[in-house]
């Protein structure tokens, strides 16, 4: 477990340092994920400690969002100004984003497959 956290925090550290020194608005953890992914591709395998521990961490990822979810309590006065219109905007825009993303990917994957079918 110690090694797992050294890996993860180390890559987050590297990501934060890079993002901050270049002034990018990207979270260090996201850069850390991409760096770790590139490292795994280069070394062609996952270190044992990560292979063993990460899947168990992942199953409880939603625990980590509960504090942010409870943050709605703090933001409530801002959200509750026009609650119905606000709910409608968030619901409709999230639905359309899901729909457009899923349709685009399905169409592109289908096109890719039909291209492979007729060489």
């Amino acid at each position: 477990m110690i090694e797992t956290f050294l890996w993860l925090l180390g890559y987050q550290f590297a990501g934060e340092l890079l993002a901050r020194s270049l002034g990018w608005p990207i979270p260090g953890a996201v850069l850390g994920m991409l760096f770790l992914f590139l490292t795994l591709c280069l070394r062609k395998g996952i270190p044992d400690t990560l292979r063993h521990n990460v899947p168990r961490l992942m199953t409880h990822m939603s625990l980590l969002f509960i504090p942010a979810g409870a943050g709605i309590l703090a933001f409530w006065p801002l959200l509750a100004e026009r609650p119905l219109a606000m709910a409608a905007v968030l619901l409709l825009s999230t639905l359309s984003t899901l729909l457009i993303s899923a349709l685009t990917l399905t169409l592109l994957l289908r096109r890719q497959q039909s291209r492979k079918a007729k060489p």
Partner: protein
Amino acid sequence: MTPTLYEWLRQSPLTGIFLTLLAYRVALSVSRRYHGHPLANTVLVGAGLLIVSLLALGLSFDEYFRGASFIQFLLGPITVALAIPLYNNLARLKRSAFAILCSIVVGSVAGVGSAVLIAVAFDMPPQIVLSLAPRSATTPIAIGVAEAIGGIPTLAAAFVIVTGIIGAVLAKPLLTLLRMNDDVVLGVATGIAAHGIGTARVFQISETAGAFAGLAMGLTGFVTAVVAPLLVHFLLS
């Protein structure tokens, strides 16, 4: 309860940590009881239970967050850890990289565009429209973008959370309705529309979906940071 004891309860980080774990554990039981029904979403139920217990105990969010910040801190390392499931799906990623990248760009533009257009249609004031624009991105990016384009950062953060919960609840039923059963499509669409909260949700359904959601979440962050200021300017001018 004596006043000193209550004071300790307010001040100690133990309260926030324990309440969060307890709310999550109960939410997990509820989710299992209803066989993972979308509305029995662990973030939705857990956060709901927490809000009720904070109100009942008379604790403010800031007092709660003294402990909860330790749990929220772990979002960093778990985001880095998303590289492992992604690497496990390397073959599928290589095969469909172009289609996935294109969808992420299209989806990120749709995320910003739909929020702005629908908010304008509902006659929302400009500051709210600008705070809604980056709501599909992860919180730190959304806050940065909202600030840059003239929105209200705290409001943007609230929109990000609500968007994530809505997306996490709706993604699976919507795609099932459309008969899109590919885990890659589920993952990418959820990661684009509902960032980390959606990613956490689809991880409960399949590791492949979770892996691609994590990738989509990260790249949507990049694209939103670049595209949102330009797109908002274009749509509102």
